[in-house]
């Protein structure tokens, strides 16, 4: 009898709710039943309410069970799940689960399918097709393909990736760099982490293609230290890539070279800002640089540098392999392609939803997300991280589209959506936005460094009912100064959650006698 093949995710989030214990229990319980099993540790499918999600290979396809706890593994094996048998936790064929079926997995196509560190699986599932094709193209052809795809930076700003690459290509230099920003520090985001843990070679392939496109022969990946699993997976993937000539002095046996370096952050949120990240990579305090010069012209060690987010780079291989049109055909307006939305916080069905731009906020939170985890009504969502706007449910009609969000005084950012139920106190959230900025400001510019501290104080006075109208006016003044006077998005966008909390939830700032934490 062939050994049964069982998949248990190795993703850090799945492990955080017991996936390792489940994998061990399956091996142990199968052995006591004299049944041979091969347990594959795959990436996560991104349906975290079902984690640990166990999948079993059957002649009909992979059958999913979840959420599985280690304590019921024996019961599941007795029920015959190794042959796909019925059980109350059986979810049917994985590919038929409606939450997955309704998505368009472009960047995340491979995440959750296989062992993320299997070089063989990577190639047999279409890996390297983009790099192979890129090796036959001229640098300008690669850049044009990326530009034509309409891909915009997934890190938050949404700057066209091809335009950035064109600048680096057009800037002559013996030495150029690709710097991957994997310092995904915003609360409510985890897609970069999942991709690095679930399909690390895709990121490396994207970086190599970027290197070919702009004439860079070295790439740096800067991962935040809060992601120890992603750091370990990427380190292992780089070693395997070198062994297989997917990196190093001879890319796929050609004369083109691309070296990879992994760097780990050290607990500083501001290092997710591109110039602060470059400072950190160079071995300095993560202080933001004034722009210009753009990093594309004078970036890492003063050389022309492509600084791209993980998902931007990871989207390049399928764009090159499948053609610009495959990506461009998805999405709406000037927001082309897909976005990997992340449903987080107080949400019943949290996880990732990759789908074309244009899906509405309400569809994501209510149809995909199923409302709150607490079962209470949704009151507010924060879109785009700690520097993103708070929106009420009356704005659930907004399509996820950079321009539509900007017009509504909000931002799509990296597509992270944090849901709050009706127990939230929005004055606290506004205060926290300022508190976070004070904690994480690099300190270089005054509006951010001092403004955030004053912001906390003013909001405290407003909450306490101390001279409220005058202090509200002062807060508005302060926000304006931060927006206009800050060097980077940290100080420049912190007013966004503050102002939107005030605009959409003014009643929360009027209750008397609330005492700050």
């Amino acid at each position, binding site marked *: 009898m062939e050994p049964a093949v069982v998949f248990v995710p190795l993703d850090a989030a799945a492990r955080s709710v017991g996936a390792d214990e489940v994998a061990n229990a399956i091996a142990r319980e199968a052995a006591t039943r004299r049944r041979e099993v091969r347990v594959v540790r795959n990436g996560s499918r991104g349906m975290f309410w079902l984690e640990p999600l166990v999948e079993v290979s059957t002649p009909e396809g992979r059958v999913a069970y979840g959420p599985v706890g280690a304590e019921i593994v024996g019961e599941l094996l007795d029920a015959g799940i190794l042959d796909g048998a019925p059980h109350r936790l059986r979810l049917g064929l994985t590919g038929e689960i409606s939450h997955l079926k309704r998505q368009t997995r472009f960047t995340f196509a491979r995440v959750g399918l296989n062992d993320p560190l299997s070089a063989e699986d990577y190639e047999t599932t279409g890996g390297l097709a983009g790099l192979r094709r890129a090796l036959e193209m001229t640098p300008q052809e690669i850049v044009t393909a990326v530009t034509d795809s309409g891909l915009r930076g997934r890190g938050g700003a949404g700057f066209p990736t091809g335009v950035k690459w064109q600048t680096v290509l057009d800037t002559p230099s013996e030495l150029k760099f690709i710097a991957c920003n994997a310092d*995904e520090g915003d609360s409510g985001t985890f897609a970069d982490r999942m991709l690095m843990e679930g399909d690390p070679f895709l990121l490396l392939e994207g970086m190599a293609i970027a290197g070919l496109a702009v004439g860079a022969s070295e790439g740096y990946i800067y991962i935040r230290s*809060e992601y120890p699993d992603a750091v370990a997976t990427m380190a292992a993937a780089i070693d395997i890539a070198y062994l297989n000539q997917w990196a190093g002095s001879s890319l796929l046996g050609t004369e083109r070279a691309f070296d990879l370096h992994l760097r780990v952050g050290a*607990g*500083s949120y501001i290092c997710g800002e591109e110039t602060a990240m470059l400072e950190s990579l160079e071995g300095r305090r993560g202080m933001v640089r004034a722009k210009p010069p753009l990093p594309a012209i004078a970036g890492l060690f003063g050389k022309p540098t492509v600084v791209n987010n993980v998902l931007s780079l990871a989207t390049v291989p399928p764009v090159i392999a499948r053609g610009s049109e495959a990506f461009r055909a998805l999405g709406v307006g000037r927001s082309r392609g897909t976005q990997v939305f992340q*449903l*987080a916080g107080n949400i019943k069905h949290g996880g990732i939803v990759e789908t074309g731009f244009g899906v509405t906020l309400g569809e994501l939170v209510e149809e995909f997300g199923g409302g709150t985890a607490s079962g209470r009504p949704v009151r507010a969502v924060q879109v785009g991280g*700690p520097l993103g706007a708070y929106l009420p449910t009356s704005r659930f009609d907004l399509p996820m589209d950079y321009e539509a969000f900007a017009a509504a005084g909000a931002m799509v950012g990296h597509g992270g959506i944090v*849901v709050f139920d009706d127990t939230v106190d929005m004055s606290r959230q506004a205060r*926290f936005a300022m508190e976070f900025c004070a904690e994480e400001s690099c300190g270089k510019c005054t509006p951010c460094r001092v403004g955030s501290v004053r912001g906390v104080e003013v909001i405290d006075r407003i909450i306490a009912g101390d001279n409220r109208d005058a202090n509200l006016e002062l807060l508005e003044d302060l926000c304006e100064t931060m927006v206009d006077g800050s060097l980077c998005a940290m100080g420049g966008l912190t007013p966004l959650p503050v102002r939107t909390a005030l605009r959409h939830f003014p009643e929360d700032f009027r209750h008397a006698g609330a005492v700050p934490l």
Partner: protein
Amino acid sequence: MVSRTTSCYVPWSQERAAAIVDRHRDERGPLMPILHELQDVFGHIDPRAVDLVAEALNLSKADVYGVVTFYKDFRSEPPGRSVIQVCRGEACQSMGAERLARHAREQLSVDFGATTSDGAVTLEQVFCLGNCALSPAVLVDGRLKGRIDEARFDELVADSRARAR
């Protein structure tokens, strides 16, 4: 990276530290990798390490000290036998992280950034561990944990104390 407990840390050794610096000095921008490895080996950045690194990389002590103190991860003193980091990001807040943060401080009788008097646990706050759909999240000696309420937190503390013993 917080990935081990103090039982693995070695006492200060000038030779060992010099070897770490040597291993990285030819890299571009070697300071961060050097500081990470020094902390992984010794548990914190010893003042003697600042002198040694500054000398070796031809930097001023102020430059090196400035970098060490800018980044929250770098410690000037060894941590407790176990390091527990509680996430206070917005996603975790929406699921009760502030209550958990209060409970953690009360339970361990320390504030964030401090170590319990018996040296068992260092408690820290962190803003996002990337586990935002399974909030509240904590990181215990580099291992991510999800859906942590007050009772689960107490279990994790008890486990940490038992492991460190």
